[in-house]
């Protein structure tokens, strides 16, 4: 089984609000001086791939589009967790690219890599939350698509996955090749690399390509980002005072006044 896992580097989504800023020129989040991490659900996607490798054998390739100057930690983490090799598309502009442009670029690389049974992504990127890369990759590659996969139920015969759904779960059978987007689940908590893994990771192959290797694909897709604003919340909280019983009493009365009881 050949598995490609798409990994995005993002500014730490749990960054304190005071460090969060929008660059008026690019209309994107300011990255300079901020901690960069692997996008939350991409770690779950990588874990799913690594579990398949552990259980039935698989070759796991980590794939990322990112400015090479900053991508080091992401790639090192993926290799230390257990990916066999990494492919980096070194694009200094990648944080500004639209989702569809990134999807086309990822598809072009995946076609170049050629061998794959499964492509895994996170269910949503922690910064833009567009949830579009996996479905677009599926179209580009002519592969099956299932998003928000919480677990893989079977992979030895037909691939059977459990998709998180509005009302619970859907058990979905998918043909290969397939593109799956992965959400977090008890069964896919990302592993922590051991010191020895961090050391051996340094010897694993990392290929670096440039967007030029893939042909031209810059295009805003007919969508222009006009503005990214940080809404100011006007705190208007009224605190109910007293000991717990008094607060409870006050709240119950307020709920009745509001006709909520």
């Amino acid at each position, binding site marked *: 089984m050949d598995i490609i896992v798409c990994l995005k580097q993002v500014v730490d989504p749990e960054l304190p609000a005071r460090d969060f800023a929008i660059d008026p020129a690019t209309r994107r989040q300011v990255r300079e001086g901020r901690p960069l991490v692997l996008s939350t659900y991409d770690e779950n996607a990588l874990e799913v791939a690594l579990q398949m490798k552990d259980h039935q054998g698989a070759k796991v390739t980590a794939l990322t589009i990112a400015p090479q100057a900053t991508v080091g930690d992401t790639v090192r983490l993926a290799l230390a967790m257990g990916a066999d090799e990494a492919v980096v598309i070194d694009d200094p502009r990648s944080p500004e690219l639209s989702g569809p442009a990134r999807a086309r670029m990822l598809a072009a690389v995946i076609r170049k890599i050629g061998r794959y049974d499964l492509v895994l992504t996170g269910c949503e990127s922690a*910064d833009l939350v567009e*949830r579009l890369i996996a479905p677009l990759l599926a179209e580009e590659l002519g592969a099956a*698509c299932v998003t928000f996969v919480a677990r893989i139920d079977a992979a030895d015969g037909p691939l059977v996955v*459990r*998709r998180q759904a509005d009302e619970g779960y859907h058990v979905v059978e998918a043909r290969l090749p397939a593109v799956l987007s992965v959400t977090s689940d008890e069964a896919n908590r990302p592993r922590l690399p051991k010191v020895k893994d961090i050391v051996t990771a340094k010897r694993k192959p990392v290929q670096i390509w440039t967007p030029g290797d893939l042909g031209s694909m810059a295009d805003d897709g007919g969508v222009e*980002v006009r503005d990214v604003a940080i809404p100011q919340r006007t705190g208007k909280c009224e605190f109910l005072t007293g000991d717990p019983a008094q607060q*409870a*009493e006050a709240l119950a009365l307020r709920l009745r006044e*509001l006709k909520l009881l």
Partner: protein
Amino acid sequence: MPGILVVAATAEGALSRSSLELVGGARALDASLGSGVSAALLGHGLGSTGAAEALHQHGVATVYRVDHPALTAGQSDAYLAAAEQVARTAKPDVVLVGADTVGREVAPRLAHRLAGALVTECTELAVEGGAVVVRRQAYGGRALATLVVRGRPAVLSVKPRSLDAPEPAPVAGSVVDVDAQIDPNALPTRVREVLREKSEVGLEDAQVVVSGGRGLGGPDGFKMIEELAAMLGGAVGSSRPPADAGWVPISWQIGQTGKTVRPALYVAVGISGATQHVAGMAGSRTIVAINRDPEAPIFGVAHLGLVGDYREIIPPLIARIKELKAR
């Protein structure tokens, strides 16, 4: 006549609330664009659901109907094929899709097949200076992005519970049956089973939601929350940590990754108020926060704040509500 096409579906045997929300959004756009609203009604056994009539009741004159046995719960590939067939027939400028389990797979793929523009997870739709302008959250709910969509067709997925369901506005309508030619055996994915999780009241439609967070300390804490919710006639939700830890079903999660709710009353218990959580509940009419940390960010969005240990506040609250209701 190119116009706005709403991709509509049924839920529990009737037109879904999300579909109605899309109709509301489409009608608001149409007030400026004036090119007409039609709907793609996709499903199986649609005749008995009254969904086409409901669409006419809400101002949609032309309903393109695909009634096919492959259009069952969660069968995205079939919905995609049907939506594509209708779009090729109706040739809309704008296509609205609900960003639910199926819609979030369908919308990007449909945009790709139609070579259109794509914006996902929109929360507001507008026409400004003749252009279609949409808003969506970004950066974990910290920012609101405004995008101008020039490409056509513009395929827009809309986050459920972002738009209001519209008032009825009956029109004389017609139904056009579209033959989508779906071969169930040729679809690359197949839903084998739908596993429902327990929830007494549909979380997204509940008028009262009581949510618990990591501060509840474990699954037992949710017993108290469930009791309070039952007392208020509401549903139970959660922040991400309890869902991730398996204390509660994942379908209870509210926020960026989870559901969006806009109840009349939202009670957040032991929830710090991270932007990713607030993203899914900020539209609630009255927000009550119970948290032992007076500095918790949840008090920045709450209308009523109670500072203290929930284990000391909830039991007398339940008792008092019981008394008031008994009167």
